[in-house]
């Protein structure tokens, strides 16, 4: 049967993201899933500070959203996940800086306690809103506003692969990495997100889906140039796919 491709119902049409921004593709994909799973009125997105702030503040989606200070996204998502009505999907949505730099403790501890949330981390290798500074996921040698000679790992440390770091260290429901730099990856990412949503609705605990994303403005490249860079350079360092499928809820013997 022929398929129709229509704008998700909760996308308002107003979009203040830059042209070619990966955020927009992820947000659209989330909204498609909410339509398909009939969760438009059963979803709370707690989002962080940075470009992700625009998700809630700029009328881009007609969804229940809340935002708190930089890095505190998963702490607030913890509180919401504990207290919201059953059957409501709770999503934490933030960038790599909010999740892994300033919010490392919050992100880690939401996973540590296996809170029933889906943690979506938009990894564009830098701090976008403030103009493109180095974050924990900036690649070795990558130019940013405060690594003008390229990132030197001896001084700044090595780029962080967070899902791999916590895999096998903590009981999670699901850890994965996707990307929005080509249509095949967008579709795979959609499947990863759908699986994370389903695991949360089954109350299996914490899922993390990191998504490699484009920031043309701070890469000082056109959208087409930066999406190639994300595919080639970031894709080489940050492996795509399922990183860990965790157990269902319950005591893990011999952890």
């Amino acid at each position: 049967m022929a398929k129709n491709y229509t704008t998700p119902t909760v996308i308002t049409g107003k979009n203040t993201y830059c042209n070619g921004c990966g955020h927009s593709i992820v947000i659209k994909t989330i909204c498609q899933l909410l339509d398909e799973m009939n969760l438009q009125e059963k979803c709370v997105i707690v989002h962080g500070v940075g470009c992700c702030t625009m998700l809630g503040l700029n009328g881009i989606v007609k969804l229940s959203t809340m935002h708190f200070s930089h890095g505190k996204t998963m702490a607030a998502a913890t509180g919401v996940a504990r207290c919201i009505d059953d059957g409501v999907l709770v999503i934490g949505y933030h960038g790599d800086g909010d999740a892994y730099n300033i919010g490392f403790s919050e992100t880690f501890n939401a996973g540590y306690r296996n809170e029933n949330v889906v943690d979506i981390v938009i990894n564009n290798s830098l701090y976008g809103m403030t103009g493109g500074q180095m974050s924990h996921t900036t690649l070795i040698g990558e130019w940013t506003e405060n690594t003008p000679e390229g990132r030197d790992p001896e001084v700044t440390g090595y780029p962080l692969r967070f899902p791999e770091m916590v895999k096998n260290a903590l009981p999670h429901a699901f850890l994965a990495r996707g990307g929005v730099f080509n249509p095949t990856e967008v579709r795979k990412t959609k499947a990863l997100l759908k699986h994370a949503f389903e695991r949360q609705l089954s109350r299996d605990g914490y899922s993390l889906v990191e998504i490699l994303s484009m920031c043309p403005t701070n890469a000082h490249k056109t959208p087409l140039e930066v999406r190639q860079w994300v595919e080639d350079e970031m894709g080489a360092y940050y492996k795509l796919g399922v990183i860990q499928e965790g157990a269902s809820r319950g005591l893990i013997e011999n952890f």
Partner: protein
Amino acid sequence: MKKIILSTERCKACEYCIHFCPKNAIGLTSNFNSKGYKTIAIDEVKCIGCGICYTMCPDSVIEILNDANKGVAGR
């Protein structure tokens, strides 16, 4: 019967759709929208309704009704 609906006011000319269209059915016109971007146009004859452009578009510019009888109007 296929129907393509474009909300060109939303278009920001990122060109993802143009790049990934398997049939080279999409191009940039010389029309500017009110945001100041040149907007896209799709050749309905070449288009096979695969939805790849829809998948990549960050701004929900493109809607494709492959089964036009069951479509929702463009928003």
